[in-house]
């Protein structure tokens, strides 16, 4: 509307009080100024709106097109012969039934998708929490003391590349149960990114800050709370983000092997029932949950990052 006022030449001639004054009489005395102003407003509105729409389309159109491509390829593959992959529409229909009652429970092997996701998230939370409780202090110690760094770096280099699933039998052997073994697997795979990122963060604390600590003769506790922890926090959160991502990748595979309740087990169970559309639904659910975890952690990380730390 603002642009309409500027574009109308007659509006400038008309007294500005016109629009605010009582319509009685004024409406009669100045019909000519009102009439041209209205079409001007109409002609100006689309140009301003189209600018808004362009931004809107750039934000919405490409992702929608990307999704459409995926669905199209899926549809093509599903329609060609006997792949056994259900078509998008069939899957959608199945998804509606699955999500209409996500929290039903008919015994341990037949539970709603909601329970399965929650069970997986719980395992990830426990395994990841334990890994954070061990890995973050270990990372600080390794970063702070060169002796410990030299002591543990070869071990970390040796163990880190091992697929987390290789640890599953060890977990089964030691803990004698599927659930603790899955948690153990999450623990072992999410501990490395946290140790390594925290240690690197500590080693990259600017020497200037450590010189300040030395000149002030700060106690080790003050150094930790006032200098090390705030300086390392961005690195630490990156480690946490990587760890959660890995944990979420690994839990599906671990649950396929251990069984019980969980999204990974659900995938395997539906495979045994030859219910492929449920598997596709599970893939989407896993992707969306992973996306949400990642998004939440990025939000947390940006809250705690000081620009000066990076430079």
């Amino acid at each position, binding site marked *: 509307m603002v642009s309409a006022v500027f574009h109308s030449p007659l509006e400038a001639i008309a007294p500005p009080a016109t629009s605010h004054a009582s319509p009685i009489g004024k409406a009669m005395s100045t019909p000519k100024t009102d009439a041209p102003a209205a079409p001007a407003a109409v002609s100006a509105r689309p140009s301003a709106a189209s600018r808004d729409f362009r931004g809107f389309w750039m934000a919405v159109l490409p992702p929608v097109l990307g999704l459409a491509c995926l669905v199209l390829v899926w549809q093509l593959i599903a329609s060609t012969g006997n792949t056994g992959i259900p078509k998008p529409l069939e899957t959608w229909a199945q998804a509606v039934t699955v999500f209409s009652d996500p929290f039903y429970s008919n015994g341990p092997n037949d539970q709603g998708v909601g329970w399965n996701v929650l069970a997986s998230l719980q395992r990830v939370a426990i395994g990841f929490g334990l890994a954070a409780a061990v890995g973050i202090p270990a990372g600080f110690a390794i970063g702070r003391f060169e002796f410990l760094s030299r002591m543990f770096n070869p071990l970390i280099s040796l163990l880190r590349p091992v697929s987390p699933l290789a640890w599953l039998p060890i977990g089964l052997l030691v803990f004698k149960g599927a659930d603790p073994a899955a948690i153990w697997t999450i623990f072992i795979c999410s501990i490395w990114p946290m140790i390594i990122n925290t240690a690197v963060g500590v080693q990259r604390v600017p020497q*200037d800050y450590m*010189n300040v600590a030395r000149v002030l003769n700060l106690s080790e506790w003050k150094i930790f709370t006032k*200098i090390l922890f705030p300086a390392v926090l961005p690195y630490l959160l990156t480690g946490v983000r990587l760890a959660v991502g890995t944990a979420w990748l690994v839990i599906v595979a671990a649950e396929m092997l251990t069984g019980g309740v969980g999204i990974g087990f659900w995938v395997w169970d539906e495979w045994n029932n030859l219910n492929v559309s449920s598997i596709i639904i599970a893939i989407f659910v896993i992707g969306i949950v992973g996306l949400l975890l990642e998004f939440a952690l990025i939000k947390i990380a940006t809250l705690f990052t000081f*620009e000066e730390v990076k430079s």
Partner: protein
Amino acid sequence: MSNSNEARYIDIQGVEQTFKTKKGLFPALKDINLTVAKGEFVALIGHSGCGKSTLLNLIAGLTTPTSGVLLCADREIAGPGPERAVVFQNHSLLPWLTCYENVFLAVERVFSRTETRIQLKVRTDAALALVGLTAAAQKRPGEISGGMKQRVGIARALSMEPKVLLMDEPFGALDALTRAKLQDELLDIVARTNSTVVMVTHDVDEAVLLSDKIVMMTNGPAATIGEVLTVDLPRPRSRVALADDPQYLHHRKAVIDFLYTRQAHVEKAA
């Protein structure tokens, strides 16, 4: 005894510093003998890479000499400590703390054993007031200008009531106008607190304006003290009045002569 103590407050005897590098041993400093009296303002000047900062780090105790002895108030300098406060070249404020908290960290460290929380707060406020930053106390370093950050750095150092104030090119990263303003403030603060100051600089005017003694260093490697110039200009000093003061110009000429004629830059000599 107390006289000699005052005159040789900082006493550097035969200090030599050699760094281990990939190419072998690099002799940075050799045969450094220097005394600084209590309340004296000493400037270390020389070309880049001549070991000015190395010498300052030795006095701070951040590094230990390869050979030789450094004494401060008749005690050997064994490590860094709050009695020898350092103002770093790049201010080195902790970005996650406010200006107040940055200063308070130092105050708390030095005085918390003997003073109440309220006294510590008064000290912190006083230090910020000394550099004219009371209004910016609750801002973080990222929200204030470079000159203000450097002033917080100075406030942090002064708040500890150090025996010696060590400054490593404190105004090097600032524009000329801000630098002049801070130099005037420093002159004023040093006069009021009667601090002993050792300052590294590469600015001839800064050295002559501020110091009682200018220590001119030869080019490295194996740099040493080439000449010590006593600046006996009366205090308080005014930048404007000194601009055409013949004695000031004479001192300025002496330093420039040393730096650019006798110790022409390394590249030229090579």
